[in-house]
């Protein structure tokens, strides 16, 4: 009982900290200077339709590199922690097996669509990678004996990670900075092949995230 009261007191204290922040908050009417620069630069310098993509991939590219590193470390940690275990599983229904072997192709195709069109439509490497991992998850759910080749997954993951870094360093050598998009001609605004290196970088991120998440799910599933 005394614990509950202590927790409630803590919550009320937090509320009193947050309340002045919330009641005095003023919503701005215009974009800040930095955001307006990003929006203008996305049109004029990078030829990218989706401003969020240009912020993530180029203007704030180092943050994204850190994020990919965190994801990689989490994969390694989970692989160390969880071992393998056995148990009896019930096979999936025939309808699910038939449908999943057909839907798998369409889901992977949609994932590729998302990360190659990251500069034109919402979405990008992370979302596309998650969709591809979901397709593999569907296969795992429909077939209890499905085994994945971890070597191929790790090869895909490390090669796409390495190429991501290499493109960043090429940008450092050839043009103004790390992960710059202007190492390739920028192309026409609104077409698929435009925005310089952004689609290529996002495709590598998508492949890396997809193989990493497949690895995480497969490790958590056990054998």
């Amino acid at each position, binding site marked *: 009982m005394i614990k509950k009261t202590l927790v409630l007191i803590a919550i009320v204290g937090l509320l009193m900290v947050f309340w002045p922040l919330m009641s005095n908050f003023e919503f701005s009417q215009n974009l800040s200077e930095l955001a307006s620069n990003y929006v203008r630069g996305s049109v004029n310098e990078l030829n990218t339709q989706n401003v969020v993509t240009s912020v993530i991939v180029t203007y704030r590219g180092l943050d994204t590199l850190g994020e990919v590193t965190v994801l990689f470390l989490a994969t390694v940690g989970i692989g160390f922690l969880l071992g393998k275990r056995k148990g009896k599983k019930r096979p999936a229904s025939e309808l699910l097996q038939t449908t999943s072997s057909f839907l798998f192709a369409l889901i992977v195709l949609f994932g590729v669509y998302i990360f190659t069109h990251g500069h034109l439509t919402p979405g990008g490497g992370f979302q596309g990678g998650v969709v591809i991992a979901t397709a593999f998850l569907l296969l795992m759910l429909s077939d209890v004996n499905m085994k994945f080749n971890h070597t191929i997954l790790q090869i895909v993951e490390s090669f796409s990670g390495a190429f991501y870094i290499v493109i960043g360093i090429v940008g450092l050598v050839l043009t103004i900075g790390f992960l710059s998009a202007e190492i390739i001609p920028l192309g026409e605004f609104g077409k*698929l092949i435009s925005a310089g290196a952004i689609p290529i970088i996002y495709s590598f991120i998508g492949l890396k995230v997809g193989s990493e998440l497949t690895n995480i799910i497969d490790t958590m599933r056990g054998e």
Partner: protein
Amino acid sequence: MKKLKHSILLFLIMMIFWILFTSTDIQELIIGVITSLIIVSMMNKLQPVLGDVKLNPKSIIYSIIYIFVFLKELIKSNVDVALRVINPKLPINPGIVKVKTKLKSPLGRAILANSITLTPGTLTVEMKEEYFYIHWIDVTSENIEGATKSIVSNFEKYLEVIFG
């Protein structure tokens, strides 16, 4: 042979989907062809479900007719469910019955099960070899023959021509 047919059909379906996603721009088409080829070659371990489809004029006509039969049954089933839900007495008489099917190909059986689920008052619960177990919201005939006649045979005669 079956596998080759499956690969070609899957490639065509994926290209149609890619064009619907994007447009008929030449850059998009090139990327789509490359992606579809990679995915099709990656999938050779899975079972070739599309290999059973027959490609002659009769089966194509039957599949077009099948779509209209299916849409008619879908609308009928919705009106049926809607009337049951609105009725304050909730007139249901449910049960799980067993029906028999003659179809052999996996895709044909899957489409039959999906069609049964979307038509009036029936829901596929389990598929075991030649028997389907179906939850029926208003059981009118309790033996296998009667249930088969009123649930399955309407679709089966079309699907038998399409999938063989």
